[in-house]
Structures are given as structure tokens and as C-alpha cells.
């Protein structure tokens, strides 16, 4: 009789330990995934800052060759400052899109200045900016990947119970609003 009781109590203890251990593992897993998504988000900012830092150099270089284009140059600077001072995620997305547009028109007008196009400094800056653009796009892609892993996990049973208890909420995906930015840019030579 005493033996049977001991065995049952032992089994209950083991079960309890297993459940507590499982909860701890799941909780830590959720923390890891959430941290990864947060880190991915801050990586986007690192890349955006690279672009902000390159723009004054670019504007200075272009000024030397294309004095009459001050309107476009001012637009680029204004767009950069708006993007840097944006306070919400939505505002920033809009401002970044505007900045990309003004940069595109800046590079389009450079076509009219052969001297500018031959300038080594300008070419290097152009290369670096387009490289930075792709790094921004890739860091956003990684943020979305991490966000998907995290969002899927907190909706899955049994993680969903823990997520509700400890207020793990879904993160928002980074969306690109302008439809033309989704596909590759088409250049026509006609």
C-alpha cells in the first residue's frame, strides 16, 4: 500500500517537474524570438543612418557641377531631414519613400552633366548609395522573416497560452506602400 502511494506521488512529482521545465523552455524560446525581431528592427535603422550620412557628401559633389539644380538638391536635403526627424514608424516609412524618390530624380538629372558622371567621387557615392539601398531592403526582409517566426510561434498551441498570459503581442510586418517599389525598376531607353 505504502509502496503504491510512493510510486503515484513520485509520478506526479515527475509530471509536475516536466511541465514546469517545459513552460520555462517555451517562455525562453518566446523571449529569444521576440529579441531577434527587435534586433532586426534596429538593424534597419543602422542601414538608414548609413544613407543619411552619405547624402550631404553627394549633395556637395553634385553642387560643384550642377549649380542650376538647387531645387532638386534642396528637395533631397529636405526629404533627408524629414526622414531623420520622423517620430512614428508610419511617418518614417512615408518619409523614406519620399527620400528614395528625390534621390532617383537627382541621379536622373546627373545624366545631363557628363563632367559629373565622369567624377570618380560621384561614381563611388552612387555605387555606395545603391549598395546601401539594397542593404536597407535586405534588413527589412530579415525583419519580416523574424517577425513571421515570432508571430507564428505565439499563435501556435501550446505557446499561445503562454503568449496570452505574459502579453506577447504580435509584431507588425514592414510593408511597402507604393506598389511600384515591390518590383524591379524598369528603365526604358526609348
Amino acid at each position: 500500500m505504502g509502496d503504491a502511494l510512493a510510486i503515484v506521488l513520485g509520478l506526479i512529482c515527475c509530471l509536475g517537474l516536466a511541465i514546469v521545465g517545459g513552460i520555462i523552455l517555451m517562455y525562453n524560446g518566446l523571449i529569444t524570438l521576440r529579441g531577434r525581431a527587435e534586433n532586426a528592427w534596429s538593424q534597419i535603422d543602422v542601414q538608414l543612418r548609413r544613407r543619411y550620412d552619405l547624402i550631404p557628401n553627394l549633395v556637395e559633389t553634385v553642387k560643384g557641377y550642377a549649380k542650376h539644380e538647387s531645387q532638386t538638391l534642396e528637395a533631397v536635403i529636405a526629404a533627408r531631414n524629414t526622414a531623420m526627424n520622423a517620430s512614428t514608424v508610419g511617418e518614417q516609412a512615408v518619409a523614406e519613400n519620399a527620400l528614395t524618390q528625390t534621390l532617383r530624380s537627382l541621379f536622373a538629372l546627373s545624366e545631363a552633366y557628363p563632367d559629373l558622371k565622369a567624377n570618380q567621387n560621384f561614381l563611388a557615392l552612387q555605387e555606395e548609395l545603391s549598395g546601401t539601398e539594397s542593404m536597407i531592403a535586405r534588413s527589412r526582409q530579415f525583419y519580416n522573416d523574424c517577425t513571421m517566426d515570432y508571430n507564428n510561434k505565439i499563435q501556435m498551441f501550446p505557446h499561445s497560452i503562454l503568449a496570452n498570459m505574459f502579453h506577447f503581442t504580435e509584431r507588425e510586418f514592414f510593408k511597402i506602400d507604393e506598389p511600384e517599389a515591390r518590383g524591379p525598376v524598369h528603365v526604358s531607353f526609348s
Partner: protein
Amino acid sequence: MYEAIRRNKWRSFLLVFFLTLFLLVVGYVFGHAIGKGEAGGIGGLGIAGILAIVMALVSYYGSDRIVLAISSAREVTREEQPRLYYAVESLSLAAGIPPPRAFIIEDSAPNAFATGRDPEHGVICVTTGLLDKLDKLELEGVIAHELAHIRNRDVMFMSMVVVMVGVIALLSDLAMRYFFWGGGRRRGRGDSGGQAGAIILVAALLLAVLAPVIAGLIRMAISRKRELLADAEAAKITRYPKGLADALRKLEYDTEPLEAANKATAHMYIVNPLKDLGGFVNGLYSTHPPIAERVNALMAM
């Protein structure tokens, strides 16, 4: 492509499981056939096992330096190779690993490989021919394939497999020696277990001959699964499977052999750099799946 990633992970895990099981079976059968009390034999096996592990550790920690040296590769900067630099930097952001160091081999044969024991020590090496012959999307496909190898720690994974294959080969070799030189002595002592003992002895003899071949075949199969896994993950990293598919086709049609590669390093490249394929062993004994199979898998994503 998520399905392809999951499937290839699972299959390579299964193969490693089989290989481990096979190693245990081989060890058990030989141990049984040779019999208890052979302390010398078991000690020998222990020494062989330790040797294999030490050799594996040396290749694990030093392989990147050794491989880069014999391939005469040199490190490049952003100023020198902006295309390569930005492809590596931006794709490692998408892959979520620290950017690996970029190396270059001066050779017009297009090819690439990755090495390094973990993502913090990653190295990507491409030939100048690869940079000349591929466009941006194709180059990104190749770089993403190599980044996937680094992220999956395939250098570590494959050295583990090589150690197991090596231990199986050593065990078989020792067993063969025992049957030739030690078998008579044991029969003389008269402690053989009758019919069951005889069956195990025959099984052990057969295994001693076949085990190294079987282990080698499993190793090649694992390697092929890891290649398909890296292809599928590259598609996820670039979000453009066609880029890698186009690159693989281009690399296949390029007939120029890579001079910096040899038989010891050939398995590391994205496609076979020796261009000496042919013969019936090609299918079972190659480290990479046929290009057509890889292209089809990518185009189906």
C-alpha cells in the same frame, strides 16, 4: 521553399542517424566476433578513435586557413570589388548572420566556395571568372548558397560525418587484420560459440569488406542533401530562386577547369571545379546532385 528547407533538413538528419546506427552495429558485430578479453584490440580501437577525433579537430579549426592557402585566395576590400562586397553584406543581413570575409581567386573559371567553422568565422571565396560571367541576380544566388552553408555550419556538420566514416573504416581495417593474424589463436583456445559464433564471424568478415564502402556512400548522400538544403535556403534568402538556377546552368556550361582546385578541395565548391565527370560511379559517389536536379528543384519553388 519552406517545404524544401524542412524536407532536406529532415533527410540529412535521417542519414546521419543511419550512419551513427551503422557505426554502432559495425562496432558491436566486430566486438562480438573478436570476443571478450581482447583488451589489446579494444585499446587499439580506442587509440584509433582518439586519433580520428584529433585529426577532425585540427581540420575543423584550421580548415579555412589551409583551404584558402592551397587555393591561393586573397582577401578583397570594398574599394576593389564593390559588387562582391555589397552582395555579401546585404545578403548576410537577409540571412541574419555576421558578414563573412570575402576572398577572391584569380581564375577565369567561374566557381565559389565557403568555409569557416561557425558563422562568426565565415569565409566566402569566389573566382574572378564568377564575377565576370554572372549578372547581379545570379551572383546573389551563388553568394546566398554559400551563406546558407555558413549559417548551417556545414563545415562542422560534414567533418563530423567524415570522422564517423573514418572510424568505420578504421574499425573494418583492424577487424580484417585480426581475422588474418589473430583468428587462429582464438580458435586454438577453443572458446568459440558454435553455430551462432560462426554466423557472427561471417557477418563480421562481410562487414569488414563492405562497411567502408557503405559508409562512404552514406557520406556522399548526406553531402548531396546539404547541397539541396543550401540551394533551398539561398532561394529564401534572395527571394528569387531563378537567380541561382540561372547561375548553376551557366556554371555547368562553362567547361574550363579551375586550376586552384584539386581532389581534396573539389567537394567544397558550388559546382564540381574539375570538370572530369563521367562514368557510372558519378551518381552514387559524387558530393553534389546533378545540376539538372538542382535547377528543377529551384524552379519548382
